[in-house]
């Protein structure tokens, strides 16, 4: 046998192990390198998955349920009435309105309309979503524990309010690995909202891997500069030159491996090769010029502008086609403490058409069934107006007790609503869905038992749902 043939065999094994270590579900052989993985391995997926991947359209800043998903006629009737203290039942208020003496009930200035066979009501700023409403399930009874952005977003993304835990996408990557050897398993894209004044911050920990190995962290695909950090060769180094440089490195590495025998060196060769392939595959993926005009008719002309939510939705579809496991979008600009009348149409203008387009596009490609789409923010907003009751400029403070999100695609029962809030969308009166339950349901759609996807760190078996979480059966098809 020649050295090269042996090398090929060895590399095959390493690729296998490489993939195994990228996802514990792949093979118990990972235990050759790390016997401890044996006890953690749960054989993922645990049961037949309904969705192969997730596209999470996170709406950063917290969109209001009153204007979009939770129509409240009683609020319209009681518009302007003051709320007395007893109404709050001990609910914590943020430092922004806890000192506001006069809290008055505030109606939405936007009308609600029924759509589709299901007749689900949506705010008038979501006409495109109305057209696909029979594909989506609206949860009106989301609830969270945090009342400020940072802890609330961190909670949604990692299952814990404080920094340090892996994000949902990292868990999915850890559990299921990647289906594409040229692209990462977990991809993140950001977009600025048109209501720029209200841009709350984001933090890379939201797509970080926490205590999971860092190969599971989300890789940000960017519209400014290189689409993936450091992807492009420097000036003066063409792809052919890079190839020659890598060939030299590969040969030196190979000889070094002959001498030392450390399998890590072979992995290093493979990762450099994947980097080289990404230099071609990522720009190809990001270049949407080859998309036909009807794609842009579907997603809207904004999809031609890199960095918009529309462009990112189109890229999400292209990533889904290429087998990326978890695609996370963040759209900023929803923190409407004031100026809801101005900013709500702007934000909905950003997201309405492309979100609906993503659903229709995946459906026409036969991929909606295997893709779970999640849309929503980090908490809801208050029934009372923050500051005065000026209907040209009103806004709402943070409200964690109930708010709305929607899900669509793989495993989800379309054309339904789930959960009920009281007349003031202040408390949930039926079927609350804590964040943990959303996580448990999401993992369930991916074929994962959320109690089995664990990682031992500092002596404890951690999971995305901590010690909580129930699959929301009512949302499942």
């Amino acid at each position, binding site marked *: 046998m020649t*050295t090269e043939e042996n*090398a090929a065999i060895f590399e095959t094994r390493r690729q296998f192990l490489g993939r195994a270590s990228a996802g514990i579900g792949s093979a118990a*052989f990972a235990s*050759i*390198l790390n*016997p401890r993985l044996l006890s953690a391995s749960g054989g993922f997926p645990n049961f037949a998955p309904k969705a192969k991947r997730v596209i999470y359209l996170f709406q950063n800043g917290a969109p209001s349920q009153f204007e979009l998903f939770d129509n409240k006629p009683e609020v319209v009737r009681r518009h302007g009435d003051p709320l007395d203290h007893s109404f709050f039942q001990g609910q*914590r208020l*943020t*430092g*922004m309105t806890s000192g506001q003496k006069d809290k008055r009930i505030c109606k939405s200035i936007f009308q609600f309309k029924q759509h589709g066979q299901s007749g689900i009501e949506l705010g008038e700023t979501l006409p495109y979503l109305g057209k696909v409403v029979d594909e989506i399930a609206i949860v009106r009874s989301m609830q969270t524990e945090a009342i*400020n952005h*940072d802890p609330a977003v961190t909670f949604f993304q990692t299952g814990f309010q*404080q*920094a340090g835990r892996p994000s949902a996408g990292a868990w999915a990557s850890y559990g299921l690995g990647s289906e594409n050897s040229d692209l990462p398993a977990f991809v993140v894209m950001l977009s600025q909202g048109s209501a720029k*004044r209200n*841009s*709350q*911050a*984001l*933090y*890379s*920990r939201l797509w970080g891997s926490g205590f999971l*190995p*860092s*190969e599971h962290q989300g*890789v940000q695909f*960017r519209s*400014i*500069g290189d689409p993936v*950090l*450091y992807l*492009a*060769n*420097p*000036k*003066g180094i063409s792809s052919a*030159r890079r190839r*020659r*440089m*890598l060939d*030299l490195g590969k*040969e*030196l*590495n190979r*000889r*070094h491996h002959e001498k030392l*025998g*450390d*399998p*890590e060196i072979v992995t*290093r*060769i493979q990762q*450099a090769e*994947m*980097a080289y392939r*990404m230099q071609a595959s990522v720009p190809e993926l990001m270049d949407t010029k080859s998309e036909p005009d009807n794609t842009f008719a579907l997603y809207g002309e904004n999809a031609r502008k890199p960095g918009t939510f529309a462009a990112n939705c189109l890229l999400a579809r292209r990533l889904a086609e290429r087998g990326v496991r978890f695609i996370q979008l963040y759209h900023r600009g929803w923190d409407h403490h004031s100026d809801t009348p101005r900013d709500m149409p702007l934000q909905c203008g950003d997201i309405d058409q492309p979100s609906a387009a993503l659903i229709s596009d995946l459906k026409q490609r036969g991929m909606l069934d295997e893709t779970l789409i999640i849309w929503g923010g980090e908490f809801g907003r208050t029934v009372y107006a923050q500051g005065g009751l000026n209907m040209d400029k009103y806004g709402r*403070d*943070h409200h964690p007790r109930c708010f709305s999100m929607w899900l669509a695609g793989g495993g989800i029962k379309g054309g339904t609503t789930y959960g009920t809030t009281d007349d003031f969308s202040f408390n949930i009166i039926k079927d609350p869905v804590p964040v943990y339950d959303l996580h448990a349901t999401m993992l369930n759609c991916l074929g994962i038992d959320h109690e089995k996807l664990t990682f031992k760190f*500092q*002596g404890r078996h951690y999971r995305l749902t901590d010690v909580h979480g129930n699959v929301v059966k009512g949302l499942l098809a």
Partner: protein
Amino acid sequence: MALIFPVFDFRFYFLVYFCLLGFFFNSATVFSEVDVEYDRDVRSILSDKCFECHGPDAINRKADLRLDTADFISEIVAPGQPALSDLFLRITNSDASERMPPLDSGNALSSAEVATLKRWIEQGARWKKHWSFISPKRPPSPYLKDRGWSSGAIDQFVLAKLQSAGLQPSSQADKETLLRRVSFDLTGLSPSLVEIDAFISDSSPRAFEKVVDRLLASPRYGERMALNWLDAARYADSHGYSLDRRRVMWPWRDWVIEAFNKNLSYDQFVIEQLAGDLLPEATLAQKVATGFNRNHSIQSEGGVIDEEYRVETVVDRVETTSAVFLGLTFGCARCHDHKYDPISQEEFYAFYALFNNVPERAHVGNSDKQADQPFLKAPSVLQYEQLAKLRINEKQLVTKIDDNLLPHEMTEKVWIDDNFPEGVDALGNGGGGEVFEFVNRPDHPVYSGNRSHRRSSQGRGQHLVQNAKVGLSINDNTTLFSYVYLDPNNPPKQIMLQWNDSKSWEHRAYWGEGKIEWGQENTSSRKKIGPLPKTGEWVRLEVEAKKVGLDAGTKITGWAFTQFDGTVYWDRSGLIYPQKSKKEKQLDAIRDKLTKLEEQVPTTMVMGEKSPPRKTFVLNRGQYDQPGEVEVNVGLPSALGRWPINVPRNRLGFAKWLVSRGNPLTARVTVNRLWQMHFGAGIVTSSEDFGAQGEWPTHPDLLDWLADELIVTDWNLKAMHKQIVMSSTYQQTSRVTPRLLEVDPMNRLLARGPRFRLSAEMIRDHALSASGLMVDRIGGESVKPYQPPGLWGEVVFTNVPRFQQDHGEKLYRRSMYTYWKRSVPPPNMQVFDAPSREVCVLKRPSTNTPLAALVLMNDPTFIETSRKLAERVLRESETNSIRVDSLYLLICGRKPKPMEHRLLLGALNDMLIDFRADRSSAADLMTVGESDYDRSFDLVDLAAFTSLANAVFCTDEAITRN
């Protein structure tokens, strides 16, 4: 050709692995003829599978049965007789609904685990306290025959284990490898060419020891050791959380470097960081050291409830302190009794009370200037020296000036006479019915020049100048003056002068009645100087600038003339001050410098104690707004020991207990991390967890021996490092034979030398230093080298500043000085597993990803350093053949083998041909990075060597210490 790559039958080796090694580790193992030890083999099973319901947590305990103390043995175990033991019967019950652990717990016991428990009962069911809670005793080192290899106790312990596994140690690594290994381990940098030459040519038996002594004495040592400490202490240059704005904590970081460099004993290192402020007559440095527990994130979001995050801050201190110094995860006991370790919820809060008394708020505003209380000014060494020198000069001059009381000449500066100063805004209609006007002789009185300005008013009237571009400077002893003429036929009731110091008009002097109500009577905002002057003649009004709150150094940018009723003429206005002597001017210059320097002195956050003390209560479910009723006092978890006598119940007492013999953990945890630094993994691989869920030590006796050695050498870190790197164990070659890869893939038995990837910082520092670009200044403000555009802008809050890259030498400082923004850590280090520093990290992962390969390939830092390395070899060597050798030596620390040499030279020649045909690409490549290139070299040579250097830097060997 010989078989080089082994082909494995996985299942076979899987079994071999367990058969040969199983008994060394606590895991689901098949036991051979070895005794089952409760502590090593049984507790880990019970902890993992049973403690959740039958452990230390009293509230969630089921059936009132606990398996974490010895009591259960008498209750449910019949020593020697599994068949009579309830424990065994329950775990083997054929009725699944009766069997423990319950089916739905997900904690089913494996057959191997059942077998272990059975054997333990058979062997007599002996119980022992968890090993790490028993104080280490110095074990005798094993007596072994193989004295040739072993160089001391460390090697004896390692060899004993190897021999019992039927293994032999590996031979010593070659000199180049060894030098590179120890240089990275002790200084974070590769050896220089001179250092390589010196070591290779030194054939004395002490050659290696000389190297070790040199490295330990290098100032780079302190930087390298600080690197790990910054992760542990979650040090960063931003506050974290949502706004994540700038903070200044680098004086603390510099303290750490200095402490390592001067080899401050580790016990003192601990005491000063935890409680330096409480030491008698604490020095500035000792107070700065307490920044350790102020490195936590601080919230700044608008709607934050202060107490919620103050509690998070205190919890963070508990978690960090317990992990770093005790190797325990106290955090679990915040909401309930610890599930695995003997720490009750109440004990958690007794510990928490230590850190709950800082006079702090948990909210910094949306501004870069704010430091959270308590903080202090912490000049750098250089600043400190400069300040001291200036203060001495100042004092000397003051004495000289006091001796020199000669009368001064006066300087007069006229600001307003026939005209207003240039570039002011003049306003003339400040009430009173009429606007002011300039008037001439002979119809009107004029004091000097050709004009005066006049105004009549009913009630209050005013005209003024303001917003002067060039203001009028106030000096020491300045007197302001204006000439005034009151019309005898229509005198005012009051006149007032008013000055603007560019901030406000709150500087007023008046004469006559108190009709005008601006300002506060008898303060500098409304000062009565005297009665109205005589009418019908020019009178000079004088006001001492100090009296109206205008101190030396301020500038007047506006002057207002106000009256109540009457007609008033104003003329010639300005100020006079005594001219300064040469000495006084010198003094001013020095004071000026002092002021500027003091403004530059950084602040740094420190610990402090609130008075009266804040009370601590158990927080129900760990919630900040659910304090229990019973107050908790400072204390230690009883499993760890007793609070020592004659030591105060505060942080200082706690710190002293930490480094006392009464504490079983700190010395072990510390040497374990030092070991981890040199071997890639600790003797306890879970270096952050020495509790029941932690890993069993691979070499328990060695760990205890090292812990004791640290204590008896008075916690001398440099001595401990020396002892470890001088061992034969450390100096083995890292070559992996197929047999070793089969038998001990993770190298837990140390039959070969440690081999692992360099840390993120070391990789970048290595590139900078090999290229000659590195600026080796220690400490100071953090710097912002290259990073891709737009990274901060994509995520930060609307009005938070964006990244501004530094230039010049700040691009080439060691990586530990790179500005660390928690929400956007330096991306080229993050891919090499550098943490965000939001929480304490004691062990970084070491990943191997395509994103990391991209950094080495394309980050401008790595291209620029390749360029400079190319220049360096072109400059220093004559022929390309020597140059490729030297390039390889600089990057990989050894000369290439003949085959490698041929490869490199071949690749170089290809690149030369390639760039010769494409000179413009060669020129383009030279523009990457901000340093210029040496134009005395041919572009083609530069570009070809640059590509070669970059290709070599992308290899595994370049970024690994072998």
